[in-house]
């Protein structure tokens, strides 16, 4: 089992009140699965995504990722897991504006450590080629179209060969045509055997996945398989 969570809870302390964002989520995802996590605003789906992506830790409960117990990790150890196991794709791309596309895509390798600059750029260029951005290597992000930026973002997520690809509203900032192109790419990556997790409130996007997990009020309400 690639991802196994048991009874995840997350409580935020907001001064006087306490907010229970997750109230016991138990979820298992196998390697190679194509999963969508759906839920309305405030359902806890973002919180779940942050915990699955090791950006945050649960208040209680267990999270095992690639046979590693990560729920107890923090700081550097957690950053390491993020670097090696997770590939993020954000709604608003989140590319760094001051460096070119290749440098952006190579950045996870920088934090991995032990990879020479030359090797980093080669690997980044490779991934960009596969995603059809071989002609945009030296450009700055602001010189790319929306679709190109998201492709570059996906390239960055892939460069470290992570265990899971975590895409948060990947088509949210794109027009429908470009959005389809991006979903095609994600579909293709799933067919290659990668584990892809979509987090979205859009049913059309979720429909691409083979399993949809509905989150409501901090718990899993239902699951559907297609």
């Amino acid at each position: 089992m690639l991802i196994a969570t048991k009874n995840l809870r997350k409580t935020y302390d907001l001064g006087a009140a306490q907010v229970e964002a997750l109230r016991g989520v138990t979820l298992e995802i196998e390697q190679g699965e194509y999963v969508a996590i759906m839920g309305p605003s405030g359902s806890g789906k973002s919180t779940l995504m942050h915990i699955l992506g090791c950006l945050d830790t649960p208040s209680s409960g267990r999270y095992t990722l690639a046979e590693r117990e990560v729920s107890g990790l923090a700081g550097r150890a957690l950053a390491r897991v993020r670097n090696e196991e997770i590939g993020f794709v954000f709604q608003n791309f989140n590319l760094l504006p001051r460096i070119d596309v290749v440098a952006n895509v190579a950045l996870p390798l920088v934090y991995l450590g032990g990879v020479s600059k030359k090797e980093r750029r080669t690997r980044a260029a490779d991934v960009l080629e596969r995603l059809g951005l071989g002609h945009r290597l030296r450009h700055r992000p602001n010189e790319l179209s929306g679709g190109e930026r998201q492709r570059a973002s996906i390239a960055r997520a892939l460069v470290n060969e992570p265990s899971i690809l975590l895409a948060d509203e990947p088509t949210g900032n794109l027009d429908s045509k470009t959005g389809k192109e991006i979903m095609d790419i994600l579909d293709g990556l799933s067919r290659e055997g990668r584990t892809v997790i979509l987090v979205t409130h859009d049913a059309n996007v979720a429909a691409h996945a083979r399993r949809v997990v509905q989150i409501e009020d901090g718990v899993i309400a239902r699951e559907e398989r297609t």
Partner: protein
Amino acid sequence: MNFFESIDAGARAMAANKARAVITTIGIVLGVASVVTLLSLMRGGQQQTEAYFAELGGARELRITNTRTDRVFMTAAERASERLTYRDAQAILTDCPAVLTVDPEITRFLDVSYRDKNFMMKVLGTNRHYPYADDMPVAKGRFISDQDCQNYANVVMLGPTYKQDLFGDEEAIGKTIVIRGVPFTVVGIMQKKEFYFRGGGGSGDRNVLEWFNRSLYIPITTMVKRFTVDDRLDGLEIAAKSVEAVPDLTEEAHTVLLRHHGVEDFTIESKSGQIAAQNQEGAFFNIIFSAVAFVSLFVGGVVIANIMLASIAERIREIGVRKAIGASGLDVFVEFLLEAIVVTTSGGLVGILLGLGLTAAVERFLGMPVDLTPAIVAIALLTSVGVGIVFGMFPAIRAARLNPVEALRYQ
């Protein structure tokens, strides 16, 4: 991220907003420039003091003088003491193992005449060690010798100004002059001693060592025999065998003199003591100068800290992304700290160049003595790196501590 890439990232961040980079570094540039200039001025002043004392003789000499008593009534012991005498000088020479040379001095103003010329001149009775002690080379002929002292010889050495006064351009060696009725043969002429202080109101024209040029030198024994009633000295300079032996000599001389006098009515001063005293006077200005320099550096540092904080606020999202893809807090900390150091160090380099220019200008247009050593440049450079570290630390820690989830959400 390795060291050089972090520096590259820092330089990039600076280049991204050129106007901000300029404003940030102005404080550092001015601060470092003032540090360089002020330290050079301080060094220049000190060096001038040391050069002055070097002209007067090196660091191995001790000067012994009669302590002035302000009190009207002297104790019996004080009255009994003869104060410094030629016999004291001889005792020091024999009884102090650390001593190299002893030169006692008795100074009187006496009439001196040659042919039709007649002057009241300063005559100094001393021994052969005098020119050694005060670094006074002989221009022509010779100085007083031990035999002259032993034989109470009537020989005289002329300081260059007095030689000119008595003989004009005539050859003086071998001629006879009359000092208070006693004929003396001229055996030598001293080289001219000069030193001009730079800076300060107009004293640059005055040779502060003219005193030496206006003297006649005769053996001290002759002085005592012919012109004084006793052998009391006006001054006594002794030199130690080495600079390290100076403290020993001070103690030994102190013991000998105390034994002879019975009271401590003398003062033993070392040249380095005098130099230290002079430097202490300058210390007041040094403190003011340093305060100015370091306040401006501090201000520069605070400016940098503020601008770095602003820069971080702009890049919160970016920090969140970096953390999301695997940057640890330490990675972020190092990156931002290095950025601050790059900013301050480049400002520091510009500041050093500016400081070089300012120092040259001060020397040229204000006539003040300066000494810009490589050590000063090194201090300035290290200071700018240090300012980067100190003032970059807080913003860097702030950046490192950002929560990635919140950072990513930041608009």
